[in-house]
Protein backbone atom coordinates (compact mmCIF):
# COMPACT_ATOMS: atom_id res chain seq x y z
CA UNK A 1 0.00 0.00 0.00
CA UNK A 2 1.37 3.36 -0.97
CA UNK A 3 1.99 5.54 2.07
CA UNK A 4 0.66 9.07 2.38
CA UNK A 5 3.55 11.46 2.96
CA UNK A 6 3.61 15.15 3.86
CA UNK A 7 6.72 17.13 2.99
CA UNK A 8 7.66 20.22 5.03
CA UNK A 9 9.77 22.94 3.40
CA UNK A 10 10.81 26.53 4.00
CA UNK A 11 9.94 29.32 1.59
CA UNK A 12 13.15 28.81 -0.37
CA UNK A 13 12.86 25.07 -0.98
CA UNK A 14 9.10 25.52 -1.43
CA UNK A 15 9.92 27.86 -4.33
CA UNK A 16 8.08 30.86 -2.94
CA UNK A 17 11.15 33.04 -2.80
CA UNK A 18 14.36 33.88 -0.98
CA UNK A 19 15.03 35.98 2.10
CA UNK A 20 12.49 38.59 0.98
CA UNK A 21 9.75 35.96 1.44
CA UNK A 22 11.03 34.63 4.79
CA UNK A 23 8.09 36.23 6.62
CA UNK A 24 5.54 34.05 4.82
CA UNK A 25 3.26 32.17 7.23
CA UNK A 26 2.32 28.47 7.10
CA UNK A 27 0.34 27.23 4.16
CA UNK A 28 -0.22 24.01 2.25
CA UNK A 29 -0.07 23.04 -1.39
CA UNK A 30 -1.62 19.77 -2.53
CA UNK A 31 0.89 17.36 -4.06
CA UNK A 32 4.64 17.84 -4.27
CA UNK A 33 6.18 21.22 -5.07
CA UNK A 34 9.77 22.44 -4.98
CA UNK A 35 12.11 20.14 -3.08
CA UNK A 36 9.16 17.89 -2.24
CA UNK A 37 9.44 16.64 -5.82
CA UNK A 38 12.76 15.09 -4.81
CA UNK A 39 10.94 13.42 -1.91
CA UNK A 40 8.37 12.07 -4.38
CA UNK A 41 11.10 10.80 -6.67
CA UNK A 42 12.83 9.08 -3.76
CA UNK A 43 9.55 7.49 -2.66
CA UNK A 44 8.95 5.99 -6.09
CA UNK A 45 5.99 3.65 -5.83
CA UNK A 46 6.30 3.29 -2.05
CA UNK A 47 4.39 6.45 -1.29
CA UNK A 48 2.85 9.68 -2.47
CA UNK A 49 3.56 13.21 -1.33
CA UNK A 50 -0.07 14.18 -0.82
CA UNK A 51 0.70 17.66 0.49
CA UNK A 52 3.60 20.10 0.75
CA UNK A 53 3.50 22.30 3.85
CA UNK A 54 5.57 25.48 3.66
CA UNK A 55 6.56 28.13 6.18
CA UNK A 56 8.89 31.12 5.90
CA UNK A 57 12.06 30.94 8.00
CA UNK A 58 11.45 34.20 9.83
CA UNK A 59 7.83 33.44 10.57
CA UNK A 60 8.86 30.08 12.05
CA UNK A 61 11.62 31.68 14.13
CA UNK A 62 9.73 34.75 15.32
CA UNK A 63 6.38 33.12 16.08
CA UNK A 64 7.68 29.66 16.93
CA UNK A 65 4.75 28.43 19.03
CA UNK A 66 2.08 29.76 16.72
CA UNK A 67 3.87 28.52 13.60
CA UNK A 68 4.17 24.98 14.94
CA UNK A 69 0.52 24.89 16.02
CA UNK A 70 -0.57 26.05 12.56
CA UNK A 71 1.79 23.68 10.78
CA UNK A 72 0.68 20.68 12.85
CA UNK A 73 -2.93 21.42 11.83
CA UNK A 74 -1.92 21.58 8.15
CA UNK A 75 -0.09 18.27 8.48
CA UNK A 76 -2.97 16.62 10.36
CA UNK A 77 -5.52 17.59 7.71
CA UNK A 78 -3.63 15.54 5.10
CA UNK A 79 -3.87 12.40 7.30
CA UNK A 80 -0.34 11.26 6.44
CA UNK A 81 1.51 8.09 7.45
CA UNK A 82 4.83 9.96 7.52
CA UNK A 83 6.20 13.51 7.75
CA UNK A 84 9.45 14.26 5.93
CA UNK A 85 10.83 17.66 7.02
CA UNK A 86 13.61 19.31 5.05
CA UNK A 87 16.41 18.40 4.61
CA UNK A 88 17.55 21.69 6.09
CA UNK A 89 21.31 21.27 5.50
CA UNK A 90 23.09 24.09 7.39
CA UNK A 91 20.13 26.50 7.36
CA UNK A 92 19.62 27.27 11.06
CA UNK A 93 16.09 28.70 11.21
CA UNK A 94 14.91 26.01 8.82
CA UNK A 95 16.59 23.24 10.82
CA UNK A 96 15.06 24.39 14.10
CA UNK A 97 11.62 24.56 12.45
CA UNK A 98 12.05 21.04 11.00
CA UNK A 99 13.02 19.64 14.41
CA UNK A 100 10.21 21.44 16.24
CA UNK A 101 7.57 20.35 13.72
CA UNK A 102 8.72 16.71 13.73
CA UNK A 103 8.69 16.67 17.55
CA UNK A 104 5.18 18.16 17.65
CA UNK A 105 3.79 15.87 14.94
CA UNK A 106 5.14 12.80 16.71
CA UNK A 107 3.83 13.88 20.09
CA UNK A 108 0.45 15.29 19.11
CA UNK A 109 -0.53 13.31 16.01
CA UNK A 110 1.38 10.08 16.78
CA UNK A 111 2.67 10.14 13.21
CA UNK A 112 6.29 9.17 12.52
CA UNK A 113 8.50 12.00 11.34
CA UNK A 114 12.04 12.36 10.06
CA UNK A 115 14.24 15.28 9.19
CA UNK A 116 17.76 15.77 7.89
CA UNK A 117 20.43 18.42 8.45
CA UNK A 118 24.12 19.17 8.80
CA UNK A 119 25.88 18.34 12.08
CA UNK A 120 26.35 22.03 12.90
CA UNK A 121 22.75 23.02 12.32
CA UNK A 122 21.43 24.20 15.73
CA UNK A 123 18.35 22.06 15.11
CA UNK A 124 20.50 18.96 15.69
CA UNK A 125 21.38 19.73 19.31
CA UNK A 126 17.89 20.97 20.07
CA UNK A 127 15.92 18.01 18.69
CA UNK A 128 18.13 14.99 17.99
CA UNK A 129 17.08 13.31 21.26
CA UNK A 130 13.43 13.40 20.25
CA UNK A 131 13.50 13.39 16.46
CA UNK A 132 15.31 11.06 14.08
CA UNK A 133 17.63 13.46 12.27
CA UNK A 134 19.58 12.11 9.32
CA UNK A 135 23.00 13.68 8.77
CA UNK A 136 23.38 15.60 5.52
CA UNK A 137 25.99 17.84 3.95
CA UNK A 138 26.03 21.60 4.51
CA UNK A 139 24.59 22.51 1.12
CA UNK A 140 21.95 21.18 -1.23
CA UNK A 141 24.44 20.13 -3.90
CA UNK A 142 23.66 16.43 -3.41
CA UNK A 143 20.00 16.98 -2.77
CA UNK A 144 18.53 13.91 -4.42
CA UNK A 145 21.02 11.42 -2.96
CA UNK A 146 20.49 12.83 0.52
CA UNK A 147 16.72 12.97 0.19
CA UNK A 148 16.82 9.31 -0.88
CA UNK A 149 18.57 8.37 2.40
CA UNK A 150 16.13 10.48 4.35
CA UNK A 151 13.12 8.93 2.66
CA UNK A 152 14.44 5.36 2.91
CA UNK A 153 14.87 5.87 6.64
CA UNK A 154 11.43 7.52 6.93
CA UNK A 155 9.82 4.53 5.20
CA UNK A 156 11.34 2.27 7.85
CA UNK A 157 9.77 4.38 10.57
CA UNK A 158 6.40 4.52 8.83
CA UNK A 159 6.37 0.75 8.34
CA UNK A 160 7.39 0.11 11.92
CA UNK A 161 10.56 -1.71 10.86
CA UNK A 162 13.52 -2.13 13.20
CA UNK A 163 15.86 0.85 13.27
CA UNK A 164 19.60 0.19 13.41
CA UNK A 165 22.30 2.12 15.24
CA UNK A 166 23.02 5.78 14.46
CA UNK A 167 26.26 4.76 12.70
CA UNK A 168 24.51 2.13 10.58
CA UNK A 169 21.55 4.30 9.65
CA UNK A 170 23.26 7.68 9.39
CA UNK A 171 21.19 9.61 11.95
CA UNK A 172 22.42 11.63 14.92
CA UNK A 173 22.61 9.61 18.15
CA UNK A 174 19.57 10.21 20.32
CA UNK A 175 21.33 9.31 23.56
CA UNK A 176 19.36 6.09 23.84
CA UNK A 177 21.04 3.04 25.35
CA UNK A 178 19.78 -0.24 23.96
CA UNK A 179 20.78 -3.74 25.05
CA UNK A 180 22.21 -5.87 22.28
CA UNK A 181 23.73 -9.34 22.26
CA UNK A 182 27.40 -9.05 21.38
CA UNK A 183 29.19 -11.71 19.38
CA UNK A 184 31.93 -12.14 21.98
CA UNK A 185 32.45 -11.53 25.69
CA UNK A 186 33.78 -8.15 26.84
CA UNK A 187 37.30 -9.47 27.52
CA UNK A 188 37.59 -10.78 23.96
CA UNK A 189 36.29 -7.53 22.52
CA UNK A 190 38.65 -5.46 24.66
CA UNK A 191 41.68 -7.52 23.62
CA UNK A 192 40.64 -7.34 19.97
CA UNK A 193 40.33 -3.58 20.34
CA UNK A 194 43.79 -3.36 21.90
CA UNK A 195 45.31 -5.45 19.10
CA UNK A 196 43.66 -3.20 16.53
CA UNK A 197 45.05 -0.18 18.32
CA UNK A 198 48.57 -1.62 18.47
CA UNK A 199 48.41 -2.51 14.80
CA UNK A 200 47.26 1.01 13.91
CA UNK A 201 43.90 -0.21 12.66
CA UNK A 202 40.79 1.93 13.23
CA UNK A 203 39.32 1.47 16.73
CA UNK A 204 35.83 2.52 17.79
CA UNK A 205 35.00 2.65 21.50
CA UNK A 206 31.77 0.99 22.59
CA UNK A 207 31.32 3.74 25.18
CA UNK A 208 31.56 7.12 23.50
CA UNK A 209 32.77 9.82 25.85
CA UNK A 210 30.60 12.87 26.21
CA UNK A 211 31.78 15.67 23.99
CA UNK A 212 32.50 18.97 25.71
CA UNK A 213 32.13 21.92 23.44
CA UNK A 214 34.81 24.60 23.89
CA UNK A 215 33.91 27.41 26.26
CA UNK A 216 35.18 30.80 25.09
CA UNK A 217 37.46 32.29 27.76
CA UNK A 218 36.05 35.61 28.93
CA UNK A 219 38.42 38.46 29.61
CA UNK A 220 38.24 40.41 32.88
CA UNK A 221 37.49 43.88 31.56
CA UNK A 222 37.98 45.66 34.89
CA UNK A 223 41.03 45.81 37.08
CA UNK A 224 40.87 43.53 40.10
CA UNK A 225 40.73 46.61 42.34
CA UNK A 226 37.41 47.52 40.76
CA UNK A 227 35.99 44.04 40.30
CA UNK A 228 33.37 42.16 42.28
CA UNK A 229 34.49 38.58 42.88
CA UNK A 230 32.17 35.74 43.86
CA UNK A 231 33.01 32.44 45.51
CA UNK A 232 31.32 29.30 44.18
CA UNK A 233 32.01 25.68 45.07
CA UNK A 234 31.00 22.18 44.06
CA UNK A 235 32.55 20.85 47.25
CA UNK A 236 29.29 20.73 49.23
CA UNK A 237 29.47 23.59 51.74
CA UNK A 238 26.00 24.09 53.28
CA UNK A 239 24.68 25.79 56.41
CA UNK A 240 24.04 23.35 59.24
CA UNK A 241 20.85 21.41 58.59
CA UNK A 242 21.34 21.57 54.80
CA UNK A 243 18.28 23.81 54.27
CA UNK A 244 18.14 23.24 50.50
CA UNK A 245 18.42 19.46 50.93
CA UNK A 246 21.31 19.27 48.48
CA UNK A 247 21.84 15.62 47.62
CA UNK A 248 24.95 13.76 48.82
CA UNK A 249 25.59 12.64 45.26
CA UNK A 250 23.86 13.04 41.91
CA UNK A 251 22.94 16.57 42.95
CA UNK A 252 20.15 18.38 41.18
CA UNK A 253 20.09 21.38 43.53
CA UNK A 254 22.40 24.14 44.68
CA UNK A 255 22.22 26.69 47.47
CA UNK A 256 22.80 30.43 47.73
CA UNK A 257 24.26 31.34 51.11
CA UNK A 258 24.83 34.83 52.43
CA UNK A 259 28.17 35.77 53.91
CA UNK A 260 27.12 39.35 54.50
CA UNK A 261 28.88 40.77 57.54
CA UNK A 262 31.05 37.68 57.94
CA UNK A 263 34.80 37.98 57.94
CA UNK A 264 35.11 34.24 58.36
CA UNK A 265 32.99 31.09 58.43
CA UNK A 266 32.23 29.55 61.82
CA UNK A 267 32.62 25.78 61.47
CA UNK A 268 29.77 25.23 63.94
CA UNK A 269 27.34 26.88 61.55
CA UNK A 270 28.22 24.78 58.49
CA UNK A 271 27.99 21.22 57.34
CA UNK A 272 28.84 19.20 54.25
CA UNK A 273 26.71 16.43 52.72
CA UNK A 274 29.21 15.65 49.90
CA UNK A 275 29.77 11.89 49.69
CA UNK A 276 32.50 11.96 47.06
CA UNK A 277 35.43 12.70 49.38
CA UNK A 278 36.27 12.63 53.08
CA UNK A 279 34.78 15.88 54.36
CA UNK A 280 36.34 15.67 57.84
CA UNK A 281 38.84 18.46 57.18
CA UNK A 282 36.55 20.93 55.49
CA UNK A 283 33.99 20.44 58.28
CA UNK A 284 36.73 21.29 60.79
CA UNK A 285 37.43 24.48 58.88
CA UNK A 286 35.14 25.50 55.97
CA UNK A 287 37.82 27.89 54.69
CA UNK A 288 39.70 24.85 53.44
CA UNK A 289 36.92 24.72 50.84
CA UNK A 290 35.58 28.28 50.55
CA UNK A 291 38.23 30.92 51.36
CA UNK A 292 36.00 33.63 52.83
CA UNK A 293 38.63 34.64 55.40
CA UNK A 294 41.36 35.38 52.86
CA UNK A 295 38.95 36.91 50.35
CA UNK A 296 37.66 39.35 52.99
CA UNK A 297 41.19 40.40 53.81
CA UNK A 298 41.92 40.98 50.13
CA UNK A 299 38.71 43.01 49.92
CA UNK A 300 39.69 45.14 52.92
CA UNK A 301 43.19 45.64 51.55
CA UNK A 302 41.68 46.84 48.26
CA UNK A 303 43.28 44.06 46.22
CA UNK A 304 39.79 43.21 44.94
CA UNK A 305 36.96 45.70 44.65
CA UNK A 306 34.33 43.69 46.45
CA UNK A 307 33.59 40.18 47.64
CA UNK A 308 30.11 39.14 46.49
CA UNK A 309 27.91 38.55 49.53
CA UNK A 310 26.41 35.29 48.29
CA UNK A 311 28.28 31.99 48.03
CA UNK A 312 26.79 29.42 45.67
CA UNK A 313 27.35 25.78 46.52
CA UNK A 314 26.43 22.36 45.24
CA UNK A 315 27.70 18.79 45.49
CA UNK A 316 29.76 17.70 42.51
CA UNK A 317 29.91 13.92 42.56
CA UNK A 318 28.23 11.64 40.01
CA UNK A 319 26.34 14.74 38.93
CA UNK A 320 24.93 14.37 35.46
CA UNK A 321 26.29 16.61 32.75
CA UNK A 322 22.80 17.92 32.09
CA UNK A 323 22.22 18.98 35.71
CA UNK A 324 25.73 20.43 36.00
CA UNK A 325 25.20 22.51 32.89
CA UNK A 326 21.79 23.71 34.07
CA UNK A 327 22.99 24.63 37.56
CA UNK A 328 26.04 26.37 36.12
CA UNK A 329 23.87 28.36 33.75
CA UNK A 330 21.45 29.38 36.50
CA UNK A 331 24.21 30.38 38.90
CA UNK A 332 26.00 32.34 36.17
CA UNK A 333 22.79 34.22 35.33
CA UNK A 334 22.26 35.18 38.96
CA UNK A 335 25.87 36.30 39.34
CA UNK A 336 25.65 38.41 36.20
CA UNK A 337 22.42 40.00 37.37
CA UNK A 338 24.13 40.88 40.64
CA UNK A 339 26.98 42.59 38.78
CA UNK A 340 29.67 40.05 39.60
CA UNK A 341 32.73 40.37 37.35
CA UNK A 342 34.60 37.16 38.08
CA UNK A 343 34.28 33.91 39.99
CA UNK A 344 36.66 31.74 41.95
CA UNK A 345 35.17 28.26 41.92
CA UNK A 346 36.78 25.90 44.39
CA UNK A 347 36.49 22.22 43.61
CA UNK A 348 37.47 19.07 45.43
Amino acid at each position, binding site marked *: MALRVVSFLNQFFGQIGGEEKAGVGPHAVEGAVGAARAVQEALGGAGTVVRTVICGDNYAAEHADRAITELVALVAAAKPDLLVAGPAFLAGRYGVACGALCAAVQAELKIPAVTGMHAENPGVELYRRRVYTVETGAEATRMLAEVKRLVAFGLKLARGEAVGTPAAEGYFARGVTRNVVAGAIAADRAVAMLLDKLAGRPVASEVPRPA*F*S*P*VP*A*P*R*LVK*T*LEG*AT*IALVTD*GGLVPRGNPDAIEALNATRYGAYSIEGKSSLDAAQYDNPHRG*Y*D*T*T*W*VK*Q*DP*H*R*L*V*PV*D*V*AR*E*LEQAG*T*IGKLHETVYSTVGVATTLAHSARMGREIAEKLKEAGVD*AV*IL*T*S*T
Partner: protein
Amino acid sequence: MTPVAVMVGANRIVSAAGIIHPLGSADLSPDDEKALRRRIVEQALQALRTEVAKPTVFTGE
Protein backbone atom coordinates in the same frame (compact mmCIF):
# COMPACT_ATOMS: atom_id res chain seq x y z
CA MET B 1 41.81 16.75 39.29
CA THR B 2 43.23 19.42 36.97
CA PRO B 3 43.19 17.05 33.93
CA VAL B 4 39.43 16.71 34.40
CA ALA B 5 39.08 20.48 34.54
CA VAL B 6 41.06 20.74 31.30
CA MET B 7 38.97 18.01 29.66
CA VAL B 8 35.64 19.69 30.42
CA GLY B 9 36.95 23.02 29.16
CA ALA B 10 37.46 25.17 32.28
CA ASN B 11 39.61 28.00 31.02
CA ARG B 12 41.58 29.17 34.06
CA ILE B 13 42.66 26.39 36.40
CA VAL B 14 44.76 26.72 39.54
CA SER B 15 46.18 23.58 41.04
CA ALA B 16 45.27 23.68 44.74
CA ALA B 17 46.21 21.74 47.88
CA GLY B 18 44.33 18.48 47.41
CA ILE B 19 40.93 16.90 47.16
CA ILE B 20 40.10 16.69 50.86
CA HIS B 21 41.07 20.32 51.56
CA PRO B 22 41.72 22.24 48.34
CA LEU B 23 42.44 25.50 50.17
CA GLY B 24 44.18 24.30 53.29
CA SER B 25 46.19 21.58 54.91
CA ALA B 26 45.61 20.01 58.31
CA ASP B 27 49.34 19.29 58.56
CA LEU B 28 50.30 22.95 58.77
CA SER B 29 50.09 25.39 61.66
CA PRO B 30 47.04 27.69 61.44
CA ASP B 31 49.21 30.60 60.28
CA ASP B 32 51.02 28.58 57.62
CA GLU B 33 47.75 27.08 56.48
CA LYS B 34 46.21 30.51 56.01
CA ALA B 35 49.30 31.70 54.13
CA LEU B 36 48.96 28.70 51.83
CA ARG B 37 45.30 29.55 51.25
CA ARG B 38 46.20 33.16 50.53
CA ARG B 39 48.79 32.10 47.95
CA ILE B 40 46.23 29.92 46.14
CA VAL B 41 43.60 32.68 46.10
CA GLU B 42 46.16 35.21 44.89
CA GLN B 43 47.15 32.79 42.16
CA ALA B 44 43.48 32.53 41.16
CA LEU B 45 43.26 36.32 41.00
CA GLN B 46 46.40 36.41 38.89
CA ALA B 47 44.82 33.80 36.57
CA LEU B 48 41.67 35.94 36.29
CA ARG B 49 43.62 38.85 34.88
CA THR B 50 45.59 36.68 32.48
CA GLU B 51 44.19 36.31 29.00
CA VAL B 52 43.87 32.72 27.85
CA ALA B 53 42.65 31.17 24.63
CA LYS B 54 42.22 27.61 25.86
CA PRO B 55 42.08 25.66 29.15
CA THR B 56 45.23 26.70 31.01
CA VAL B 57 46.63 25.37 34.27
CA PHE B 58 48.37 28.03 36.37
CA THR B 59 51.18 26.55 38.44
CA GLY B 60 52.39 29.73 40.09
CA GLU B 61 55.91 29.60 38.69
